[in-house]
């Protein structure tokens, strides 16, 4: 393809091809390198309720709420989670080019982490905050290792995530849209009311939220994904508050905290993110 200035460039294909490498037969050295990289990129899900020696029984789970991304995770921190009613039961350790998580459970909202919490009064309610980026070759592993530890009968899944409003396809320009706004996608088995309009064609969802919802659709688990389209990439209270309609849903209304406490926590997020944004003292 020739550009305006006449130089020839290789046009990247939308089909995302990388055939040269795929077509080549692997030498033993290549195979060794590939295995080492795969091992490094393996993710570990460490459940605290599992003791090493005895046979591992699956966790009985009736409700699984997954927040993917910083703002979704912060929504759960502000409006649902606290140290009294919830206990940490698991952590994901992973590494990829974008982030690394550790097995520590003492985290800041701006850290990369993936933690699992259980409601002490009802241990079948599980919650996950995943603010780290799970790469495309790790998403399937995440699904198998997390859902693999659960008994899926009677399970319902709620997923919260955010994405840039620039990705939203609509007849109008995205500049005129009132963002942030929520859109939902649900699996065939999900029968409850959704708290916002459904995501219209031709919009799609990618990455871990899509992986979780696909898993639920294939294995016939009732699940709903709430996607918040926002024009702010970092931690932002307006984006976090855009998830508030979910507090009236069947799943979350019994779990919601006191409103005043939520406001206090939100204020703390505001100061954290402001410090982050300042490049001038």
């Amino acid at each position: 393809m020739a550009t305006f200035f006449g130089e020839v460039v290789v046009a990247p294909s939308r089909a995302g091809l990388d055939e040269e490498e795929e077509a080549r037969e692997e030498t033993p050295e290549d195979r060794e390198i590939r295995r080492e990289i795969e091992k490094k990129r393996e993710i570990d899900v460490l459940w605290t309720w599992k003791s090493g020696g005895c046979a591992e029984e699956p966790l009985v789970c009736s409700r699984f709420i997954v927040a993917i991304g910083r703002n979704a995770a912060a929504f759960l921190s502000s409006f649902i989670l606290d140290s009294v009613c919830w206990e940490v039961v698991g952590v994901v350790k992973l590494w990829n080019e974008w982030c690394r998580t550790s097995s520590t459970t003492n985290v800041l909202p701006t850290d990369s982490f993936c933690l699992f919490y259980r409601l002490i009064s009802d241990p079948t309610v599980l919650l996950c905050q995943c603010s780290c980026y799970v790469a495309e070759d790790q998403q399937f592993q995440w699904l198998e290792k997390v859902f693999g530890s659960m008994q899926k009968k009677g399970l319902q899944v709620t997923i919260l995530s955010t994405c840039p409003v620039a990705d939203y396809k609509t007849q109008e320009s995205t500049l005129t849209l009132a963002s942030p706004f929520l859109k939902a996608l649900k699996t065939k088995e999900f029968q409850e009311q959704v708290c916002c309009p459904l995501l219209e064609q031709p919009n799609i969802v990618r990455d871990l939220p899509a992986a979780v919802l696909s898993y639920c659709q294939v294995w016939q688990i009732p699940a709903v994904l709430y996607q918040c389209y926002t024009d702010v990439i970092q931690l932002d209270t307006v984006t976090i508050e855009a998830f508030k309609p979910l507090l009236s849903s069947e799943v979350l209304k019994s779990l919601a905290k006191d409103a005043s406490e939520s406001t206090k926590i939100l204020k703390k997020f505001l100061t954290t993110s402001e410090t982050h944004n300042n490049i001038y003292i």
Partner: protein
Amino acid sequence: MFIPCDRGGGSAAPDFKGFTLLMPAVSVGNVGQLAIDLVISTLDMTKVGYFYTDCLVPMVGNNPYATAEENSTELSINAEVYSLPSKKLVVLQIRSPFIKNKYRPFCETLLSWVKSSQCARVVLLSSSHAYQRDDEQLLGTPLRYLLTPDLEEAVGGRMQELNWKEMEKVAAYPGISDTDKVLHIPGGGITKLLFTESCSKGIQMAVLLKFCSEGDNIPDAFVLVNYLNEWLQLIKSESNNSTDVSSQWKIPSSWRLLFGNGLPPALF
């Protein structure tokens, strides 16, 4: 692996014995996938299952073939199977790219499913970089076909009748005159791998491909699906005068806004 949509009690798993499996390669311009969209949309095919795999990038969205409010809220994932028993046709649609190093595992899983479900043959729709054509290929039709030896016996004659052009082999080392000729499908994604594996496994496979470049590939999809129709006769021409069925393919609702949103009014 194939997971049927309807499981449990009364309904039996769908039976694809003797069916033709039609599928795309994720290739330059996504032409195969666009052509498959046209087939599914026009023939109003029913979704019968998912091809659940860790080889493709995950994605979800609402029904891309929605025609009304009622059918617009069914969730679709990255690899789904549709069927039309009246034409003994089963279609696999792939909606996202392959994850690195997953070409070979996908081919193996797919071909073992073809064998276990006893599909009669596989038709792969694909494309190849137009800029890599040699002088001869620049002239004449941009469409090519390939047949595995097992299918060559059955339908090779039909291809001759249709006056189709077989994909040429190229020199393994261009410029050096007496080298072996090899099959080279640049931009074809898994096409070459699937084809060579099918040859060695005795699977009846046909590859139909078009030379094209990235851009607005909708016209390429129409050309490719018409090419397919010359052979499989999925839709019959409605007019008596011509065999051109281009206007009869139904564009799915998900093809809207392929090149971006509306413009901000403040621009003008």
